[in-house]
């Protein structure tokens, strides 16, 4: 990407990471991607009562070309799926995705032929936010979690190392149905 990719791991790289992370998280512009009922709660987050403007995020960009964050708010039907993917592809890097609500995270109450069972079938998701719909405070919590993720994103050689570690962890993890939970 830039000079930060070529820095060796060390104090300089970590300082640049923190600086870049701070810059990126302070001005995340969400794309207007309200699909269904969760869009109303997303609108509520823009009102002065819950105020997303304190994070610099009040500028929802209708064009994905200028957006950083795609909040998939609502159920994604089979007909809408290629459109979601196209809007995601049109966003320039760095980009993040919050799947807001249960319908976007897992299909929600609609376990049928018409609804995609989780938008992670289509786009990679950074933060899953449950709720039907999630309260505006819950969406703000998800955004703050994402901000922490953005702040601590590794760059350059650190990023390659982190990606390898994440892949190792995912390959060695127990699958959900093999975990011991309350139903076992």
């Amino acid at each position, binding site marked *: 990407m830039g000079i930060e990719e070529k820095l060796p791991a060390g104090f300089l790289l970590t300082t640049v990471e923190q600086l870049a992370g701070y810059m990126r998280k302070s001005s995340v512009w969400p794309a207007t991607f309200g699909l269904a009922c969760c869009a109303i709660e997303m609108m509520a987050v823009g009102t002065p009562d819950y105020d997303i403007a304190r994070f610099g995020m009040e500028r929802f960009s209708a064009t994905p070309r200028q957006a950083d964050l795609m909040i998939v708010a609502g159920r994604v039907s*089979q007909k809408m799926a290629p459109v979601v993917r196209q809007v995601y592809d049109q966003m320039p890097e760095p980009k993040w995705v919050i799947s807001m609500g249960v319908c976007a995270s*897992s299909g929600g109450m609609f376990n*049928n032929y*018409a609804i995609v069972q989780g938008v992670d079938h289509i786009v990679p998701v950074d933060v899953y936010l449950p709720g039907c719909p999630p309260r505006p405070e819950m969406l703000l919590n998800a955004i703050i979690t994402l901000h922490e993720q953005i702040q601590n994103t590794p760059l350059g050689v650190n990023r390659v190392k982190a990606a390898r570690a994440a892949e190792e962890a995912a390959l060695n993890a127990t699958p959900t149905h093999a975990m011991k939970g309350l139903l076992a």
Partner: protein
Amino acid sequence: MSDNDNTKVPADKAQETGGAPTEAERDNLPAAPGTPEVVSVRHGMFGASDSGDTSGYGGLVAPVLFPAPAQRPYGRYFDEVADHLERALEGAEGFGRAIEKVIVDRGELTLFVRREDLLTVARALRDDPALRFEMCTGVSGVHYPHETGRELHAVYHLLSITHGGRRVRVEVTCPDDDRHIPSIVGIYPANDWHERETWDMFGIEFDGHPALTRILMPDDWPGHPQRKDYPLGGIPVEYKGATIPPPDQRRSYN
């Protein structure tokens, strides 16, 4: 009809459509209804219906009843509508050929029309000055898998604003192996998208429709989802330690 107040709808007619009945209509009582016919019997509501189901819904036996064809007088404004339609269709012979049966149930008039005569009947209902059902609120499809020869129904709801909110329902049937019904887009242009939806969900092809394509499902979707033989299509849900199948495939819980 004990109250004399014309503006209040009497309680026993509260469920009827078409606005408050006038004095004349209130005296025009319909003939006694015939015995309903049993179309099929529904066993159980959902899930497994074998023993071990503690919800009680598995043992339900419910007949699916259709109202019997109505005898004259139909009551309210239905007689007037039937008489004017008979005149518009050139006599009792034309009426008898086009209209298969007339049903008056719960204060609503339903005309079962043969699909070959649908366009004539729809044009008469729209254009005749005494009928003037200018508004068609759309087509709905119904699928009755047990009624061989008449599996698919297309239901049209017509509203007459000129005559004070009169409503009539026109129902057309077609067999499953010959799913063609003439399109009434030439008479009621607003039915365009409704006919596309009925084609998408049930597979009824409307002959004469300008562009009969899928509207709700993606363009290359196979099958017609709202038919009774189309599966729900859910996927099993993973929890920690268990996988729960979709609602139509769950066993009964002891």
